[in-house]
C-alpha cells in the first residue's frame, strides 16, 4: 500500500464517513463498535439528523439491548422526538384535510409526510420539520384563502420575498397555524417556475399518476414521480451551510430499493424522467446512490442513461464535489475543501434555479439589502429548539 492510500485510510474524515455509512448500510454490525466509535458515530449522526434512523434499524433488528446503554439512551431520546414529529405532522395534515373539505381539492402529500402516510421503509425514524403538500396550480389561491380563513397565518415577508415566491417559485410563502407551530409549504409544482431543468409541466400530470392512501383523503406521488422529486430535492435545493443532505440521498436509496423490486419500475422511471426532462438529475441521482450507498441498479438502466451524462470535465468535477459535500466530516477536523464544495454546489443549485439575468437581478437586490444592513429576520422554531 502506498503512502497516499495509507494516509487516506487513516484520515479522520475517512474514519467518520466509514462509520456513518456502515451504520446506515449494515446496522446489524453496530453492536461490534467500541465506545470511542459510538461516541463519534452519535456526534456525526446527530449532525446529519440520522439518530432516529439508527434507532429504527436497531429496533427492527432487536439489537437495542446489545449496544452500550449510553448510546441506547441517546437513540431513545431521538426516537421519542421523531415519534412526536410524526404525530404532530400527521395531525396537521388531518387539520388541512378538514380545512379544505368544502372546496374538494385533490391534495398530494410530499416528502416526509408522504413517506409516513404511505408507510414506506424510509419513514421509520426519519426526522422532518415541515409539512409539504402539492395542489393543482389553478386551485392554489383558493387553498391559501381557505386555510387563512381557518386559522393559518401567512409568513410575514418583505414584499420582494413574497413576490419572489409567487412569481418564480414552485410554492407559495409558508403558512403557519396560529396555535400549532408546524409550518406548511404549499407547492404547485416540483421545480421552480424559473428552473432550467424540467418541463414547465402541468401539475395535473403528477396528479394522474398519484394514488389515494387507504382510509385517507390524501394522495401520494406515483413511485417514479416520488423518486424524481426526492432527486430534485437533493440536487436542486441546496443549503450553503449544511450542504447537500445525506439523509436525502438515503431517502432516494431506500425508495430505489423498495420500488426497484417491481419489474416495471425502472423502465417507468426512465420514461418519466424523459417526460419531465429530468434525465440529467436522474443520472446524477443513480450514480451517487450507487457510488456512495451501493444501491443495486440494473445495468440496462445505467446504460441508457449514459447519453444524459454531462461532459467529462463536469463529470469529474461532480464526482469530486458530491462525496465531499454529501458525506460527513470528522466534527473535530472540518475541512475547508468540503466547505468550498458545499458552496460551489449551492451556487450550482442557484444557477440552475433561474435564468442568468434573473439570478443577477436577484443577487444584486439581495446584496444591496445587505449593504444597507437590513436586519434579516431570524426565526427560531420550536423544532429547532428540540433538535436532536
Amino acid at each position, binding site marked *: 500500500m502506498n503512502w497516499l492510500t495509507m494516509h487516506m485510510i487513516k484520515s479522520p474524515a475517512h474514519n467518520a464517513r466509514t462509520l456513518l455509512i456502515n451504520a446506515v448500510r449494515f446496522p446489524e454490525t453496530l453492536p461490534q463498535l467500541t*465506545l470511542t466509535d459510538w461516541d463519534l458515530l452519535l*456526534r456525526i449522526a*446527530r*449532525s446529519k439528523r440520522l439518530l432516529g434512523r439508527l434507532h429504527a434499524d436497531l429496533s427492527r433488528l432487536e439489537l437495542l439491548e446489545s449496544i452500550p446503554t449510553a448510546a441506547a439512551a441517546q437513540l*431513545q431520546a431521538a426516537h421519542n422526538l421523531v415519534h*412526536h414529529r410524526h404525530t404532530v405532522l400527521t395531525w396537521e395534515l388531518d387539520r388541512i384535510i378538514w380545512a379544505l373539505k368544502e372546496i374538494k381539492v385533490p391534495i398530494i402529500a410530499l416528502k416526509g409526510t408522504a413517506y409516513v402516510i404511505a408507510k414506506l421503509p424510509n419513514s421509520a425514524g426519519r426526522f422532518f420539520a415541515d409539512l409539504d403538500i402539492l395542489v393543482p396550480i389553478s386551485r392554489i389561491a383558493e387553498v391559501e384563502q381557505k386555510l387563512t380563513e381557518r386559522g393559518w397565518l401567512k409568513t410575514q415577508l418583505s414584499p420582494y420575498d413574497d413576490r419572489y415566491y409567487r412569481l418564480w417559485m414552485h410554492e407559495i410563502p409558508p403558512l403557519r397555524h396560529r396555535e400549532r407551530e408546524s409550518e406548511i409549504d404549499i407547492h404547485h409544482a416540483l421545480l421552480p417556475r424559473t428552473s432550467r431543468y424540467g418541463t414547465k409541466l402541468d401539475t395535473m400530470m403528477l396528479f394522474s399518476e398519484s394514488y389515494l392512501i387507504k382510509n385517507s383523503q390524501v394522495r401520494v406521488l406515483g413511485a417514479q414521480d416520488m423518486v424524481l422529486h426526492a432527486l430534485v430535492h437533493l440536487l436542486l435545493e441546496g443549503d450553503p451551510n449544511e450542504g447537500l443532505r445525506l439523509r436525502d440521498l438515503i431517502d432516494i436509496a431506500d425508495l430505489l430499493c423498495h420500488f426497484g423490486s417491481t419489474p416495471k419500475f425502472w423502465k417507468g422511471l426512465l420514461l418519466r424522467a424523459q417526460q419531465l426532462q429530468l434525465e440529467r438529475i436522474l443520472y446524477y441521482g443513480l450514480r451517487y446512490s450507487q457510488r456512495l450507498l451501493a444501491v443495486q441498479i440494473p445495468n440496462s438502466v445505467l446504460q441508457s442513461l449514459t447519453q444524459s451524462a454531462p461532459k467529462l470535465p463536469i463529470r469529474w468535477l461532480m464526482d469530486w464535489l458530491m462525496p465531499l459535500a454529501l458525506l460527513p466530516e470528522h*466534527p473535530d477536523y472540518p475541512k475547508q475543501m468540503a466547505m468550498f464544495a458545499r458552496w460551489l454546489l449551492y451556487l450550482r443549485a442557484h444557477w440552475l434555479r433561474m435564468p442568468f439575468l434573473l439570478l443577477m437581478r436577484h443577487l444584486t437586490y439581495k446584496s444591496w439589502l445587505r449593504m444597507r444592513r437590513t436586519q434579516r429576520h431570524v426565526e427560531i422554531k420550536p423544532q429547532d429548539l*428540540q433538535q436532536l
Partner: protein
Amino acid sequence: MNVSDLTLLELRQRLTTVGLCFGCGPFRIRLRTPVAPIAELLHDLYAHYPVYSELGIDDYRVKLDWASWSRRWIRPIVRFTADGPAPFTDVPVLRALPTLEWGTNWCIATRAHHFLMLHAAVVERNGCGLILPALPGHGKSTLCAALTHSNWRLFSDEFGLVRPEDAMLIPLPRLISLKNQSIDVIRAFAPSAHLSPSFYGTHKGTVAHVRPPLNSIVRMNEPVKPSLIIFPRWQSGALLNLESIPKDRAFMLLATNAFNYEVLGELAFNAVAKIVQNCDSYSLVYSDLTQAVQAIDELAHNAHD
C-alpha cells in the same frame, strides 16, 4: 476520582486539551475551555463530581471558547457551544460560569427526551421523593437550596428527571443557581452552604451558584420513588399556607409544568398519572424559609408513616 483530586494544574490541562469528562447524574459531560479564569471556579464548584475516563460516550460536549482572537485581550468575551452553532450570544468573561451552567441546562432541555423533564426542584429524605414544581421566580431554587442544607438530598433544582418506564425520579445534582435576594437569604439560612462568588448583570440579574453537597453527588445513581408534590410560591409577607390539591388538578399542574410533556406524549401521560397517583399534592405559599422547611419536614414525616 473526583475533580477535587485533580490539582488545579491538572484540571487546567484537561480543560485545554481532551476536556474534563465528568459525571452528573445519568449524564456524562465533556467540558473543554481555554478560558483560564474559569478553571479555578470549576475546581472549587465541581469539586465533588466524579472524573471519568476520556474514552466513552459523551452525552454532552460543551465548550466555552474565546469569541475571537481580538476579544480575548480587549474586553474579553466568551462563547458557549455544544458541538454545533452557538445557541446564545457571547458574554463577558466575568459571566462565563453562569453561561456555562445555562448552556449545559439548554443541552439537557433540548436533548434528554429519553426522560420526562419536569420544571421542578427535586429532593429526597428517608426514601421520600419530593417534587417542587414551580414557575420561574416562585422561589423553587431557594427552597431547594434550603432543603438541601436541612438533611434533604439534592436531586436537582431545575430538572425533575423522571424515567418514563417506571416513573422513578433520577438525580441530576447540578449547581443550584440562586438569583438576586435569594443569595443573601441562603447565606443567612445555611452558613455551611458553599456558594460561588456573585455574578452581576446577567440577564437574570445577580446570580450565585451553590455547590451540591458531597452526599448528593456520591448517591447520584440512586433513584427514588416520588411520594410528595408541593407547588411552592414565595410571597413577600405572606403567612404560611399549605393546601391540599386534588389529584385531577395536580395532574394538570404537573403535566403543563413539564418541559417535554408533548414530546413524550403517551409515555408522559402515563408517567405523570403514576406520579400523581402515588403522591399527595399540596400548594405552599410562604414568606419565611425556616417555617416552610419545617412544614415540609412534617408533611414528609407524615407521608412516610
